């Protein structure tokens, strides 16, 4: 009986649309579910970035040049090749492999006792690319002219599928983020439509007492935006908690890194305001359309 009087409670028109109506619950649920999924998609896209980075780091930015030549010419040709490499744009550094390093590379196949010194082994030169990479075809052309015994191996056949896979994973992830946003917008628009339909009585009564469209739409927009915000916040928190707690991918394996690292944890926090903005626009458009249709 000691409820607040009508002025205090209704003064800002905040309660015009029922709070606990099931269509508002619907909005909350939809944005919660969508935000939860968005957290996963975001994690996937961030992780696929990390993944691509790692794969690139290990493979993409190195190449090997093998130089075979008669013992007498090997010194001169090595110098020539190094000079060519030095003047090739896109190559950051070059390094002639030591004998010990060559032995290490061969150990799995020949054991530690291979007499590398006495063999007429080719020289191996490691090439570190700049991030932009170099023009492998052009380089091959110049090499064939000046050092016919030089063979360039840019690891392409190893690199291509991995980089491709990382890229497609990344595309898939961003596609799902986009799809989820679109789905959320569509579903919140639908929920707004449902809410307006379910509250046809509210609209009719407000019309009867002379409320303008902007007032009626505003009441719905406010209610639904708040619900979407609340739902999205809940979904995001639960999704982030899932990532913090669940061992989604083990320590090893190349799914390692699926999750958020460091500053990445801040990104999901953008989801609730985004959901709120989507809800605001979707509801506003739906409300004004419905109000204009039913005179």
């Amino acid at each position, binding site marked *: *009986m000691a*409820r607040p*009087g*009508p*002025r205090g*409670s*209704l*003064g800002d*028109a905040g*309660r*015009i649309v*029922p*709070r*606990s109506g099931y269509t508002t619950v619907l909005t909350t649920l939809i944005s919660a579910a969508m935000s939860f999924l968005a957290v996963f998609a975001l994690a996937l896209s961030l992780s696929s970035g990390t993944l691509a980075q790692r794969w690139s780091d290990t493979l993409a930015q190195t190449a090997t040049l093998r130089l075979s030549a008669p013992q007498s010419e090997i010194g001169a040709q090595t110098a020539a090749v190094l000079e060519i490499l030095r003047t090739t744009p896109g190559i950051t550094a070059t390094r002639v492999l030591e004998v010990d390093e060559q032995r290490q590379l061969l150990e799995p196949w020949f054991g530690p006792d291979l007499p590398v010194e006495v063999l007429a082994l080719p020289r191996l030169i490691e090439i570190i690319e700049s991030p932009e990479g170099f023009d492998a075809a052009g380089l091959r052309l110049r090499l064939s002219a000046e050092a016919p015994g030089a063979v360039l191996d840019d690891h392409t056949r190893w690199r291509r599928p991995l980089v491709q896979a990382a890229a497609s994973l990344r595309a898939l992830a961003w596609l799902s983020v986009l799809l989820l946003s679109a789905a959320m917008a569509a579903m919140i628009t639908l929920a707004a439509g449902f809410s307006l339909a379910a509250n046809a*009585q*509210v609209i*009719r*009564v*407000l*019309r*009867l*007492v*002379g*409320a*303008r*469209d902007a*007032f009626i739409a505003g009441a719905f927009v406010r209610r639904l935006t708040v619900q979407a915000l609340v739902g999205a916040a809940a979904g995001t928190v639960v999704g982030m908690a899932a990532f913090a707690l669940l061992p989604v991918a083990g320590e090893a394996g190349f799914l390692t890194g699926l999750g958020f690292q460091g500053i990445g944890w801040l990104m999901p926090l953008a989801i609730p305001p985004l959901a709120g903005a989507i809800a605001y626009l979707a509801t506003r458009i739906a409300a004004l359309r419905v109000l*204009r249709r039913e*005179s």
Partner: protein
Amino acid sequence: MVIRLANVSHDYGGHGLLAGVDLHIAPGTFHFLTGPSGAGKSTLLKLCYGELTQNSGEIEVFGQDLRGMSRNALADTRRRIGVIHQDCQFLDHLTLAENVALPFVATGRPVPEADLHELLTWVGLERQANALPPTLSGGERQRAALARAVIMSPDVVLADEPTGNVDWDMSQRLLALLVELNRMGTAVMIATHDLNLIRTAKSQVSARNLRIADNTLQSAGSDL
């Protein structure tokens, strides 16, 4: 002129309902509207406050054609009309007092608590002020609807069957309230089946009695 209908016709797509209706409601006048169930009384009232748009003819409210009006202008016009809908319509999640105060809230004005309380007392609902509409009795809802229709001191009150669910004493009380408003200049039109109500009103106010019959609006002063 508060409301003017000129040669208005309306039906819902089927057979004719209202045809060639002329009606003039001047400020400060009192009208009763009768006619058999299904004759079109509610329809006529809905035309007057723009819930329906006529098939043909002209309707002017406060000198303006309803059809040419912008949506905001129509809303503003409705604020000057107190409507009692036959199916009393409330927001079921708000208390009775909040529902009665709704015209103020919807137009962004502060609620005059004193007036609100006085009005609720007059219609015998001060005890139910904090009750939700679904828990009210039929008559209590009707009285609340009347209270809401008059709380903004409108220029005209259109009441659709305002006393169908209340007892005789209460219907006299509600009539007295409308007569009082009418004396202060408000035009009133009441659609009702209750001929006794019309008869007792005669002693309090000089009312014009209209009847819908055979799809037309007729004067029915004598045969009541």
